[in-house]
């Protein structure tokens, strides 16, 4: 008998569906029109835009300002975006379609900033620096989600774990007057909550969304109670020390990058360390292979002698640890006191970043920066006295989240057994 083992190679209709090609082209032209009618025509001829390239309060790694003519820059942006849109409609970018839409979006943001700062100046470096800080809790939340969901447990409780972590961090930090002990307390609280999530969803096989929601509600209520009852009545309990800015010798002197990445908070450094650690651990170690196998096909892992339950417990506990760390950032790394509900949905946006990043640490940090940047623009522009109401600007990150999730991601590479309790036979 002839043996047939061929991988069939198919003819393709096209890389990108015709509808998608059309929609993306129109979107790009629409962006070009917004730049033209919104910014070019409303700009004053002869104006200059000044971008300050050194964040405020920094003396190392300073850099000169970047001055560009407002109107010509905007016209150039319009022309390039129109060209992209027309090329997309006529020929299409194939694989690069998403990237080109992203580029147009970037042009829109840049055009907006140029227009807003026409005749005056905006601190671009300061904005980027604050974007990095705003990205920290989102990215750490996304890492937390990656750890747990890669093992097949949906952790929607990240928000609650972060909130609890921020409160405990402030409380323990204030009592001990130590940032590091406060941080340890925050991490411990994340661990405990994730242990509850693990017991409920792995051992008792309760629906993971419900178990997570319960923890979120518990955290919101508990932190509010402790805050009102103790932290507000006794300010000494809500006055933790802050982690100082630590410049990294040498690197901190690099213009632009130095002040943003190398002269900052310990949480930023931890975020980058975790990026490397999680990436390597998940994809290059025995532990990672087993963890991912449990998230993809627990029965297969079980038949090979892998303890599915234990593997999932470890993953969920690690997820809680990182979520606790993310929570500590709010009180010990950023604000210096605990306010009710101060995580403000960052845990959920972290989950969105995890999905946007396709359940990969590198993707998660990329998405984290995107969302952080959107946040930074929102807060910066309300300071600039923009014509757009600050409340509308504040919705920008959420709008971007929705557009990104609905339009670009589709299903992604979600772990196949994500959210499914494992029943042993």
């Amino acid at each position, binding site marked *: *008998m002839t043996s047939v083992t061929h991988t069939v190679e198919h003819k393709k*209709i096209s890389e990108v569906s015709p509808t998608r090609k059309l929609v993306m082209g129109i979107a790009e032209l629409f962006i070009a029109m917004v730049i033209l009618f919104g910014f070019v025509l409303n700009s004053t001829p002869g104006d200059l835009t000044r971008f300050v390239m050194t964040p405020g309060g920094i003396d190392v790694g300073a850099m000169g300002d970047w001055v560009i003519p407002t109107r010509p820059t905007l016209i150039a942006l319009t022309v390039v975006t129109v060209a992209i849109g027309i090329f997309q409609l006529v020929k299409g970018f194939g694989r690069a379609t998403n990237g080109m839409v992203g580029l147009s979006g970037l042009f829109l943001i840049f055009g907006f900033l140029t227009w807003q700062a026409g005749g005056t100046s905006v601190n671009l470096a300061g904005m980027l620096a604050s974007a990095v800080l705003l990205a920290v809790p989102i990215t750490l939340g996304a890492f937390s989600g990656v750890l747990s969901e890669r093992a097949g447990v949906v952790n929607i409780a990240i928000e609650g774990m972060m909130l609890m972590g921020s409160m405990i961090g402030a409380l323990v930090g204030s009592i001990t007057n130590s940032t590091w002990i406060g941080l340890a307390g925050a991490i411990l609280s994340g661990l405990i909550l994730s242990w509850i999530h693990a017991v409920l969803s792995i051992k008792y096989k309760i629906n993971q969304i419900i178990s997570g929601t319960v923890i979120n509600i518990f955290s919101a209520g508990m932190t509010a109670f402790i805050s009102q009852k103790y932290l507000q009545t006794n300010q000494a309990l809500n006055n933790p020390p802050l982690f100082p800015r630590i410049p990294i010798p040498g690197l901190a002197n690099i213009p632009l990058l130095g002040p943003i990445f190398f002269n900052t908070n310990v949480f930023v450094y931890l975020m980058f360390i975790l990026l490397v650690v999680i990436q390597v651990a998940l994809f290059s*170690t025995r532990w990672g292979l087993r963890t991912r196998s449990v998230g993809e096909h627990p029965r297969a892992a079980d038949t090979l002698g892998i303890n599915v339950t234990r593997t999932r417990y470890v993953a969920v506990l690690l997820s809680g640890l990182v979520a606790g760390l993310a929570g500590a950032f709010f009180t010990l790394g950023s604000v210096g006191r605990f306010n009710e509900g101060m995580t403000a949905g960052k845990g959920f946006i972290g989950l969105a970043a995890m999905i946007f990043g396709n359940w990969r640490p590198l993707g998660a940090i990329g998405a984290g920066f995107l969302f952080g940047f959107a946040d930074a623009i929102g807060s910066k522009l309300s300071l600039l006295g923009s014509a757009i109401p600050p409340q509308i600007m504040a919705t920008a990150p959420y709008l971007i989240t929705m557009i990104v999730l609905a339009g670009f991601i589709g299903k992604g590479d979600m772990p196949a057994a994500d959210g499914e309790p494992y029943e042993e036979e």
Partner: protein
Amino acid sequence: MTPILELKGITKQFPGVLANDHINLTLHKGEILALLGENGAGKSTLMNILYGLYQPDEGEIFINGEKSMVTSPTDAIDAGIGMVHQHFMLIPVFTVAENVMLGEESVKYGNFLNRDDAAKKILEIGNQFNLPVNPSDMVRDLPVGVQQKVEIIKLLYREAEILIFDEPTAVLTPQEADELFKIMRSLVEQGKSIIFITHKLREVLDVADRIMVIRQGAVVGETTPDEADKNSLAAMMVGREVSLVVEKEEKVPGEVILSIDDLVVADKFQNIVVDHVSLEVHAGEIVGIAGVQGNGQTELVEAITGLRKSSEGQITLMGEDVTRATPRQITELGSAHVPEDRQADGLVLPFPIAENLVLCTYYKEPFSKGVVLQYETILDHAKQLISDFDIRTPSALTPVSNLSGGNQQKVIIARELSRPIQFLMASQPTRGLDVGSIEYIHKRIVQKRNDGCAVLLVSPELDEIMELSDRIAVMYRGNILAVVKRSAVTKEEVGLMMAGIMPESDFKPKEKHVVERTF
């Protein structure tokens, strides 16, 4: 000589069923023992006990003459037992090397994966046992036959001596199955021992050294391929005489019912998987589409039944253009669909039988009046069909998820064939079913054809195609290579065409028959 494996008095009781009733089994080194039995006879339970997934209520396991406790897959692996599961235990998004080493990883520097080392071992095993695979391929990109090789390599990587194959051919094409049997032969020649679980008679006779037949949890006999034949095995398995040949009267086909013209269909990745296909099905004939799975049959069926949009071409059903019609419009024209995956597309598993039986008609009189379902009518209807189609169930309100595969399929057959239909789209109607159910479903399909219904049958089982069809269309890589009269071809010729080989010099259309070639 001490047998390599001995099971003594294995008994396993599940609520309401005695799955294994004092089963004794002996396996010698270097032999293939076939475990034959219908679905639900207790074969898989027995093997799951051996593999440590279930614990027996009674009985003992001896490996190499020593009493062994197998309480988990880890124990089984340590004892040299490996199992190729019916549904592959592979992770689609992992590479071959990652799948093989999972649980038994090659590592360096303590905890870091050593993919190169694993790949080297896999290639060595591949050479030794003639299992060529590329360790760095992603499993999801591999054809099913190759995936199975990966499963076998997994066992050999763990140095398993006793290999259990649980219904290994259920997902394979005839060619792939033949190749698997060669592999199994070469494995036993190199000293491995195999237990081969199946309900397919041909395979048992082809490959086994010894045959053990199980019925209702108990061993009912032991034989060898030399002493047995298909009929005697079928009778042992089912417990009564079974007719393996479908009786079919000659019939002159009537008018064209389904006409497919130059149809192009793409899958979800925009690959063209049905490539300018044309085909006609007449009233009173069964046209069988033969082909290795994954050659576009699934998408063709979905296009015909309105579940998938075609990009070019036309589909005409009973004179109406249904190219853009919805499944309901197509159903209401008088067409029936037995889908390929009964659990995913044919039934609503948690719903009771009675509701599943009216899924196509619930919104019409007499099953509903206005917006209100008429439960009494629905129940009476269900009771009628349950007795007409011999569905074995405690009641009409039992959820279909509780039924065996054969009875689930009967529910679909009952729902689809009890309606007045002129066209039946049957996609793998007997997939995974036992001999008794297959016999029954074949009879029903032929009966519909005799009543003048046009039937389009898709099946990767060549035997089924050869037995039922009046005409055979061979599908290969999205094309229909040939449409031939059943009586004009042999099974071997169709088998070759399924592999894309057109028999040329010695296969001229036999004098009186015409081979229509449609491109």
